[in-house]
């Protein structure tokens, strides 16, 4: 517990970087595709219009979306996000899952809304 508080404090100061694997454990996220859970997280981006995500998401970001189209995988690959998190337990196309496995794109899922999840991410020091 103490160690965790120290870690979070360090994280908030930007001293360490959290890996996707740790985030999955901390927030109990469902792993749909998790072939590269050692990727490091650098902030996040929320968006369902893929054209906007293409322009705005940064490498290492967590991308929170309700969009389950297979183009999500291509956009994730292009923007080099650390993981896609499907919020509100939205469906994701089978084809998207297959492509994500091929390209080792992490796809996670949560029943939380993007708003709730973003709040938790901030609490963890991911900004």
């Amino acid at each position, binding site marked *: 517990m103490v160690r965790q508080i120290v870690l979070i404090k360090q994280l908030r100061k930007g001293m360490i970087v959290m890996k996707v694997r740790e985030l999955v454990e901390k927030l109990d996220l469902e792993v749909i595709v998790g072939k590269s859970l050692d990727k490091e997280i650098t902030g996040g981006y929320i968006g*369902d*219009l*893929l*054209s*906007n*995500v*293409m322009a705005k998401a940064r490498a290492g970001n967590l991308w929170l979306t309700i*969009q389950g*189209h*297979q*183009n999500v995988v*291509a*956009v994730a690959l292009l923007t080099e996000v650390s993981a896609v998190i499907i919020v509100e337990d939205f469906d994701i*196309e089978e*084809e998207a899952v297959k492509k994500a496995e091929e390209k080792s794109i992490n796809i996670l899922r949560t029943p939380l809304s993007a708003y709730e999840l973003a709040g938790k991410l901030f609490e963890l020091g991911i900004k």
Partner: protein
Amino acid sequence: MGFILNEMQSSNPQMNAEKYSSNYKMRNTPCSSSNKLRTYKADLHVHTVLSPCADLLMTPGNIIKRALASGLDIIAITDHNSAENVEVTMELAKDTPLHVIPGMEVESSEEVHLLCLFNRVDDLLKWQEIVYNSLPDLKNDEDYFGYQLLTDLNDEYAARVDRLLAVATGMTVEEIVDKVTKMGGLVIPSHIDRPYNSIITNLGFIPPKLKFPLLEVYKGTNPQDLIKRFPFLKGYSFIKDSDSHYLDDLEPMMEFRIKKVSLEEILLAAREKDGRGIILKQVKR
């Protein structure tokens, strides 16, 4: 010409469909057997008073009059997620030189708008059943969304559609393309360069496995400018429609050079087969 109505009322849908289809393709084109190319001014994206966002003057009769006055030879009626004003429009247009292509503008689960066109109105109505089954069970609130009105042969308001039409269906773009194509229809993504409800905005790019023969650009867009912004559009063929919601919007934005009015001919024009083609009105920058 007068027997379209009789056929629409026929109790045998199969016979109805065949006769209707051949009649539809032949009517108003006495030269169609001569295989000569002709130029048709066309607008494949027109909303009627059934679309909640359309003006109340967009009745089928008014649309036909204005379309003819503006020089159009072909229009497609494409209301949001419904086709209930298509038959009445075709019936009202049957003694005029205007060709009416049966259609609908469907909204996918990704909120992408897609024009779905058919040769035969009964195929469109079958498609409408599928769309209706895929819409959420919500009631239209006229104060928020607008009126969803059906009109009759006197061009008067006859009924309202209660279910909410201006909403996404549960079908993905892929599912819509797959189903409509299997039913003999043609899917054309609407206004691909619009900042909302467009395939490029909502999905970032066009899913490569979908082979769209045609894409619709917005009125004020020249495809060559768009290709500079989105190089993946290179090699596509384009149409340009008015997407009319008001009578004043109706004007020809393109011409088809085809032998007769059918989806097959439009597809051949997209490929510029044997002298056919699509000429878009250029806008000045």
